[in-house]
């Protein structure tokens, strides 16, 4: 998704930058065109003005009140031009009708052309002068404006097409630019999802993408090393603990078998044996979890009917529930088949049931329900145990996590049950989560994809451990 929006962003930015450039270019072009057209107009003014002026100068006599002059001018001057004639004192001798009696003479340095609006029209004037007479000649700028408008409309008409083309180009360039990123993302995702042994494909180029690949690979190296250290430590420690525990256990059992032991000693010994067994369970649990971390859980795949599985556990579960003074209820369909490892799934479900029985109030209830939507099978275990604080809802899945309620030793257990259940579900591409926990019910559920088989990671036989 991020790459996709990045791609859209790159395309949009391209369009924005190109639009900006086109606007600047268009503005510049218009400005230049206007300058050029006005220059042409000025030349026209100059030529026409000089001709007219020389005609006027050649006209004999005094202009004041000279009716003949007016007629002459009407005849001589171009009807589209704007003409005003003054004498040296500034008295208007003639003013063409299209000026509507508006004074248009402006004193200018060196007779530079200037612009005035008359009757809503923009006009350009130039003054021609001798000591005796002054001619002001003006021409309409409408033609210039028209040319500019035409230019602008042509420009605006083509602009959308150009921008669409630019957008498409930008989209394509962005695609080209993000393709290696996408490839890296895909590969990196696969690395985190399966195992840390894989690396990104070696970079082809020395550009920033190539650099990124190298840096990421180095990061994966470090990650793998520390991850391996942790798992190896857990695995080695558990492994090293196994033998002494087994030895201790064997010696205790030998002592227990001896006839010379007094009953109180016997009780102590069997308690110690039970403690040894608990220790082994913890060590086994740790080994199991370190294998899960290392993605080396051996998963045997086959169809597993979760309902039949629950029924297998039922005898033991009912005994445990009866012992704790609880009622056990089952709300199960006839069948609910997933693909997975029956033994692991049984272990996960039993852990949840065990938990629900252990952390319950006296004369409480445990309810097992199973249901399915199209993709997943959901097995939920709810009990009437104390509600779990909001802050602890994820923590219950942490290894060795104990709630205040479970601190009393008689509850038994070692705080690995939920972690193990969750790892088993995750190895099946599912999960275990806490659905609700309030004063009424606390409910955990296992969600398993029905076709879990397809992507279960096979145990790695090539991966050597020591």
């Amino acid at each position, binding site marked *: 998704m991020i790459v996709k929006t990045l791609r859209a962003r790159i395309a949009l930015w391209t369009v924005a930058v190109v639009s900006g450039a086109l606007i600047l270019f268009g503005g510049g072009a218009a400005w230049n065109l206007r300058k050029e057209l006005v220059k042409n107009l000025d030349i026209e003014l100059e030529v026409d003005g000089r001709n007219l002026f020389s005609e006027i100068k050649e006209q004999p006599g005094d202009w004041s009140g000279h009716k003949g002059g007016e007629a002459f001018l009407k005849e001589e001057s171009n009807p589209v031009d704007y003409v005003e004639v003054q004498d040296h004192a500034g008295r208007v001798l003639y003013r063409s009708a299209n000026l509507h009696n508006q004074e248009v003479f402006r004193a200018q340095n060196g007779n530079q052309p200037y612009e005035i609006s008359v009757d809503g029209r923009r006009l350009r004037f130039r003054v021609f002068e001798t000591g005796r007479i002054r001619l002001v000649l003006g021409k309409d700028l409408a033609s210039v404006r028209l040319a500019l408008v035409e230019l602008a409309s042509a420009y605006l008409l083509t602009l959308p097409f150009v921008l669409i083309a630019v957008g498409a180009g930008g989209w394509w360039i962005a695609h080209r630019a993000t393709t290696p990123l996408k490839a890296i993302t895909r590969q990196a995702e696969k690395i985190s999802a399966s195992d840390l042994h894989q690396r990104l494909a070696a970079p082809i180029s020395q550009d920033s993408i190539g650099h990124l690949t190298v840096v990421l690979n180095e990061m994966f190296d470090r990650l793998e090393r520390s991850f391996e250290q942790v798992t190896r430590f857990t695995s080695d420690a558990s492994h090293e603990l196994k033998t002494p525990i087994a030895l201790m256990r064997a010696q205790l059992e030998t002592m227990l078998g001896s006839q010379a032991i007094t009953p109180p000693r016997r009780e102590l010994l069997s308690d110690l044996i039970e403690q040894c067994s608990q220790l082994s369970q913890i060590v086994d649990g740790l080994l199991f979890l370190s294998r899960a971390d290392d993605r080396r859980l*051996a998963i045997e795949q086959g169809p597993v009917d979760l309902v039949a599985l629950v029924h297998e556990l039922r005898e033991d579960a009912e*005994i445990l529930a009866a012992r704790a003074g609880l009622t056990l209820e089952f709300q199960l369909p006839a069948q609910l088949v997933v693909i997975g490892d029956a033994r692991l799934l049984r272990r996960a479900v039993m852990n949840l049931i065990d*938990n629900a029985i*252990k952390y319950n109030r006296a004369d409480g209830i445990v309810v097992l329900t199973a249901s399915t939507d199209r993709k997943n099978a959901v097995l939920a275990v709810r009990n009437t145990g104390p509600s779990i604080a909001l802050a602890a809802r994820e923590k219950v899945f942490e290894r060795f996590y104990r709630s205040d309620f479970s601190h009393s030793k008689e509850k038994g257990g070692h705080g690995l049950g939920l972690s193990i259940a969750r790892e088993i579900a995750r190895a099946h591409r599912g999960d275990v989560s806490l659905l609700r926990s309030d004063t009424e019910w606390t409910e955990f559920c296992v969600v398993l994809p029905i076709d879990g088989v397809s992507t279960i990671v096979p145990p790695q036989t090539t991966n050597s451990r020591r």
Partner: protein
Amino acid sequence: MRILVVEDEKKLASFLRKGLVEESFVVDLVYDGSEAIDHILSGAYDAIILDIMLPQRDGLSILREMRQRHINTPVLLLSARGNVNERVEGLNIGADDYLPKPFSITEVVARIRALLRRASGEHATVMQVADLSLNVVTREAMRAGHRVDLTNREFALLEYLMAHVDRVITKTALCEHVWEHHFDTGTNVVEVCIQRLRRKIDEGHSQKLLQTIRGTGYSLRGGK
């Protein structure tokens, strides 16, 4: 009875387990050598089925290590057909029996039963304690000539107790050898199952065979 199956070929392993579970054995499966030694060292197995060809560590070296550590659990080796040297070596370093592949599951079960019998010093397929008998093949239990119906769990429990007659068995051991799952809630399940079994085999008989050793566990006493 808890059996460890060490076999890297998944299909075969699962086939073995299925056959053994049907006979009320508790079965653990492992697929590679290093994992196998972990399991064996924790020592709670009544018999081990061990394939010779394994990834990471072969069956013979596992066998050698466990015998060096004085773990005397009976071992049934699985080997490829025709590899006589391997089998001889296996038997010489402490295997109790071998079976060439391919094999039938009934033969595996029969051989495992034979190994277990030998380990418990019994030689008949019918185990006998006083007037209680248990035929491990037909799964029939008789007390004083009367048939006793047992659930799978009760059968497994009785079989284990009869194989260790006159010895004190801790609840912990029963839990490990008869149940697949280890319960966080301790050994309550064992106690309840023992009570049920006792009701079936001892009720109405003056001689009580299944005895509770207070604070320790249970013992099946022949009372000689």
